[in-house]
């Protein structure tokens, strides 16, 4: 117990803790100096890595502000700053339509995925029915299936249903839940006390009521993980729109597919007209929402990712 207290203070010293306080846990002065030196070395290393990892973002911002002729001049700070790029990009590219498409698809995907995965997870967590264990094993096994194997027949299925060239294939699959999310939600539902449901049942609550009134509201934090993960996956998805939307009009593209299109049009190596700064502006604008999502839901991301590891 005593070591717990000590280690807790070491891991999370209150930021306002006075320095004198540290003498209590850091032991003899010699150790304190060694520990401080180790910290400084580690901070330096982490700082260097962080700078390295942030550099492409800074470069993206810088290149998005450069005029046409200077985009490839390899200067970190633009010689001429053209704020107008951020206005002009909307005249050059149908970026507004792309964004609207991306938002609609991502919201539909994330919303439907959250509901369907929650429903299925509750079915697996709460009810007893023949073949449940067997079906759940099947669900886990299906998570390991590489997407390449079902890519072509899925395309043919959507084609058969007449939805090629629409955005339906990009969010339709979310209606059916997904192995990883179902697994995650089921873990959460299993942790809810069963008495809660029994009490509600005695009071005459229906099976659906158990879900909508008790399970789903209580599992909201886990649902947020599913929503955020799926929103990000859909927003960043490139292969899907490439397969299902590429043959339609440019204005039907999502932002990632649109940027890939713009890269071809503006890439000077391909005889394009070199206005690569618009690609940079669009790339920055497609990244910003993800950074905002991360800033808002960082806790959920780290929890969600960690829960995968615990399972592994």
């Amino acid at each position, binding site marked *: 117990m005593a*070591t717990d207290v000590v*280690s807790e203070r070491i*891991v999370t010293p209150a930021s306002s803790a006075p320095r004198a306080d540290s003498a209590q846990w850091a032991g003899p002065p010699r150790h304190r100096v060694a520990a401080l030196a180790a910290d400084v070395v*580690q901070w330096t*290393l*982490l700082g260097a*890595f*962080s700078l390295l*990892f*942030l*550099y*492409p*973002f800074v*470069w*993206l911002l810088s290149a998005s502000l450069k005029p046409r002729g200077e985009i490839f001049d390899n200067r970190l700070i633009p010689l001429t700053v053209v704020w107008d790029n951020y206005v002009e990009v909307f005249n050059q590219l149908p970026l507004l339509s792309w964004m609207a498409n991306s938002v609609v698809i991502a919201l539909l995907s994330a919303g439907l995925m959250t509901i369907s995965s929650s*429903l*299925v997870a509750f*079915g*697996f967590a709460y*009810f*007893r*029915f023949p*073949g449940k264990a067997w079906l759940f094993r099947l*669900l886990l096994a*299906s998570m*390991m*299936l*590489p997407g*390449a194997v*079902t890519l*072509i*027949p*899925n*395309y*043919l*299925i959507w084609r058969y*249903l007449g939805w090629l060239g629409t955005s339906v294939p990009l969010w339709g*699959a979310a*209606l*059916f*839940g997904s192995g990883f999310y*179902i697994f995650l939600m089921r873990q959460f539902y299993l942790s809810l006390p069963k008495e809660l449901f029994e009490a509600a049942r005695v009071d005459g609550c229906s*099976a659906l009521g158990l879900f909508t009134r008790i399970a789903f509201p209580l599992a909201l934090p886990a649902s947020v993980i599913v929503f955020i993960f799926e929103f990000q996956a859909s927003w960043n998805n*490139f292969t899907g729109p490439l397969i299902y939307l590429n043959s339609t009009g440019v204005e039907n593209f999502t932002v990632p597919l649109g*940027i*890939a299109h713009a*890269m*071809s049009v503006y890439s000077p190596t391909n005889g394009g007209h070199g206005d690569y700064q618009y*690609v940079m502006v669009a*790339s920055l604008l*497609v*990244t910003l929402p993800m*950074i905002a999502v*991360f800033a808002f839901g960082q806790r959920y*991301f*780290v929890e969600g*990712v960690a829960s995968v*590891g*615990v399972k*592994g």
Partner: protein
Amino acid sequence: MSAAHTVRAAAELTDSPQPARRRRPRKVREKYSWRESLAGYLFISPWLIGFLTFTVISMTWSLVLSFTDYNLATGRQTPVGFENYALVVEDPKVVTSLLNTFVFVVLSVPLELVLAMVLALLLNNVRRGSGLFRTLLYLPKMTPAVATAAVFLLLLNGNDGAINAVLEFFGLPGPQWLSDPDWVKPSIVVMGLWGVGGSMVLLLAALRNVPRELQEAAAVDGAGSAARFFRITVPMISPTVFFVVVVNTIAALQVFDQAYLLFYRDGNSNAPDAALFYGVYLFQQAFQQFNFGLAAAMAWLLFVIILGITAVQMLVGNRTVHYEGGR
């Protein structure tokens, strides 16, 4: 419509476990309330329908396709036996793309693991500010692949890219990342390493789960920091390391986005052969040449390769990975 298939397949799937139970008569037959069972099946029905359509029917169709010549215009499937598989094996581009993919896996998986491990250890050891650094290092993982490719196209430029400018500063000759065939794969590896944050967070979570008492007890017994790392930390986090290796290998075998965006986005033919990964070639065959039969055969070959490699990893993993509480 596929609804009829779905219902029939659903009936088959839910029936099939019962013979298995009959074969084990000694097990007490569980009593199920039919109302509860019905509710359960209704709750999981979205997944059941999706699984039957997009996995069972899909995989069956894919297998059938791989033995046929599919005409997209008429939708007619002509059986051709093993011809597609023969074509796959004989196609020199399949061999090239497979070798490219293997080289990429061998380069990227270990490098990503080492970098993720170094960063996770640093984050775990540092006593303050790990939250901030973790956020900064994870941000690239949030970035859409297209934005990553767009900015790395500038950074990796062989003549005036920022990465070569840095290398020159240290007196190193910068390679032609995007046009020299020898540097094409490393350039995609570098892009991948920028997104190391996912593996890093997984390993960090595992490191945080190593009980402190174990480390302290070993230290009291006189174990040095190296001994503690290899005798305690490594075995305790080995399941996560194993998971990261398996998942990253499967992902690397299917690498597509980055290679496609950097080299094949406008379908031009002057892309270096060194960038032709299996996933890219499969995509070209399926959605640019519309050789669905051949592409389906390629997909099944990839599936078998992935299964084989994962199975080998599992075998090695079972001998080396330490599972707490035994398994």
